């Protein structure tokens, strides 16, 4: 019998207690992992947004509280077009309002002429006509949700738009929303001449990061968004999410640690005599330590696996709600599961150090006499 199996069989001695502890820690790990999945999904959605339409990078207003609150003027766009490396600038105005049953329906106002550069691959129909005012292109997700087809009309802010095309970009936020003529969105949003973000296509051979840095340097009120790390400049939301995530992780470690400590302290106390016998049989204190830490670690590894499975199940269940799936697709990346595992290991160590120390410090003679 291996030592590991021996440790495992010790856990089975108190099945109910072990089970409850595993369950408690699992719930903590589920919270951490599920939250991690959503934070990552939100980040992925944001990343898709800043690199939408095949742009090399996007430009927003520096210091905006939220990406969608960024506003750029025609002057800003003109300044961007000044750069030799810039091949094309597409200004996009974003709006969110209730459409159909979705309260967070994304609308992207784009000048139909920019659609030559801003890639929204059609699966059906055609792109907005130049100068069109009441046309709309739906993402395939939105079309599915609204049950709309080419030629149907979609009501937005009491205005009617005729569906001319259905596109599929692969980006959840885009495909869950619609593309409309820029002028129409500016009109009903009362943001004449304004856009949210500028999408930049550079000439081939351009050093994108260098250009973005130069733009920021020369225009301090603009923020260039080359990758997710830049998003903090125009959006505090992700930073808040990250902070919440970290806070909950720390909380989970402490709560779990106390649960493990309680379980292991009980296990050590009720086995005092047994530890004495093991010492009398020649076990070193180090092996006693290994056994107690091993039991805690195994307990938490089981909880980590169980908690991760639960988190996946939970996130899959949540996206069954159309309003959630419209703007989030769960992203299962290794790092969130590693974070769950790290929480499990930290919980085990935090919870087991004191009981292990107690067990190792027992005087063998006293422990043998212990009733």
């Amino acid at each position, binding site marked *: 019998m291996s030592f590991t199996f021996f440790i495992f069989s010790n856990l089975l001695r108190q099945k109910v207690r072990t089970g409850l502890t595993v369950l408690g820690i699992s719930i903590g790990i589920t919270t951490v992992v599920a939250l991690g999945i959503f934070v990552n999904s939100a980040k992925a959605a944001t990343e898709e947004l800043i690199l939408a339409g095949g742009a090399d990078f996007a430009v927003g207003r520096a210091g905006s509280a939220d990406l969608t609150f960024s506003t750029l003027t025609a002057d800003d766009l003109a300044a961007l077009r000044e750069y030799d490396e810039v091949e094309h600038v597409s200004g996009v105005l974003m709006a969110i309002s209730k459409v159909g049953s979705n309260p967070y329906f994304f609308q992207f106002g784009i000048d139909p002429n920019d659609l030559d550069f801003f890639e929204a691959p059609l699966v059906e129909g055609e792109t907005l006509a130049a100068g069109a005012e009441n046309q709309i292109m739906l993402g395939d997700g939105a079309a599915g949700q609204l049950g709309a087809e080419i030629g149907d009309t979609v009501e937005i802010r009491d205005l009617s738009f005729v569906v001319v095309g259905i596109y599929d970009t692969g980006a959840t936020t885009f495909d869950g929303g619609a593309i409309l003529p820029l002028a129409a969105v500016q009109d009903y949003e009362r943001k004449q001449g304004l856009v949210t973000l500028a999408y930049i296509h550079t000439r081939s051979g351009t050093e994108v990061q260098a250009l973005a840095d130069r733009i920021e340097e020369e225009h301090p009120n603009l923020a260039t968004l080359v990758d997710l790390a830049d998003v903090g400049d125009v959006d505090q939301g992700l930073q808040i999410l990250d902070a919440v995530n970290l806070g909950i992780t720390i909380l989970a470690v402490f709560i779990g640690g106390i649960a493990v400590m309680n379980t292991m302290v009980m296990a050590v106390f009720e086995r005092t005599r047994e530890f004495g016998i093991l010492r009398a049989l*020649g076990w070193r204190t180090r092996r006693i330590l290994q056994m107690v830490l091993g039991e805690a670690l195994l307990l938490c590894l089981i909880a980590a696996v169980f908690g991760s499975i639960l988190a996946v199940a939970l996130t899959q269940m949540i996206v069954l709600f159309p309003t959630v799936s419209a703007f989030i697709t769960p992203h299962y990346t290794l790092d969130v599961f590693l974070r769950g595992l790290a929480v499990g290991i930290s919980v085990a160590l935090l919870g087991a150090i004191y009981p292990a120390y107690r067990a190792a410090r027992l005087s063998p003679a006293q422990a043998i006499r212990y009733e």
Partner: protein
Amino acid sequence: MSEQPDTVIDVRNVVKTYDEGRTRALDGVNFQVERGEFVSITGPSGCGKSTLLHAIAALERPDSGTIYVNGDEITSQRDLSRYRARSIGLIFQLHNLLPNLTASENLQVPMYETDLSASARRRRAEELLALVDLGDKAGKRPTQLSGGERQRVAIARALANDPGIILADEPTGNLDSKAGQQAMAVLRNVQRQQAVTLVLVSHNRQIAAAADRTVYMLDGKIAEGDAAASERRA
């Protein structure tokens, strides 16, 4: 080094007190055991028998005095765990087997401190079970064994790492007379076969009488000194 190479256990003037000196559990004990000898210790409850065994097993450190085992002073041993694992086999009144492990697995517990492979440990456990006539109970848990059988597993466990010395503290104290006799027969048998030195504490006269020599203890002392009071039967 002790002068006589055949003295396996040599306890000299050992004092052990508890409760800040108020209880003198061992009060200047002198006690020698020779290689291969079977010595029984008797004496009233509280006279210090268990304390003496614990001191020899290096579970308890004497306040003063010295204990030589195989010629080495045990308190000077660098690695007491190693000494306990390799040189001493302990048997207690209660079997103290781990309830979640089978008989065979229980026998393997002391072997974790050796570098035997898992399969070698299992083989050794089977050997030991055969030695105590429990070859067919390898897969049984303590709750599936009788009291006598459990104690025989505990005897086998004491032999796990092939120690030269077995210290038994009332090993039959919890058994009825038949099971006690059976366990004693097994113990006696393996002691002869393996030529180990056996020190056994017992209240039972019959069992004490089976020993090569019986030592009486009273109030933390070997009564009237080792040589004079011990009956030699050899």
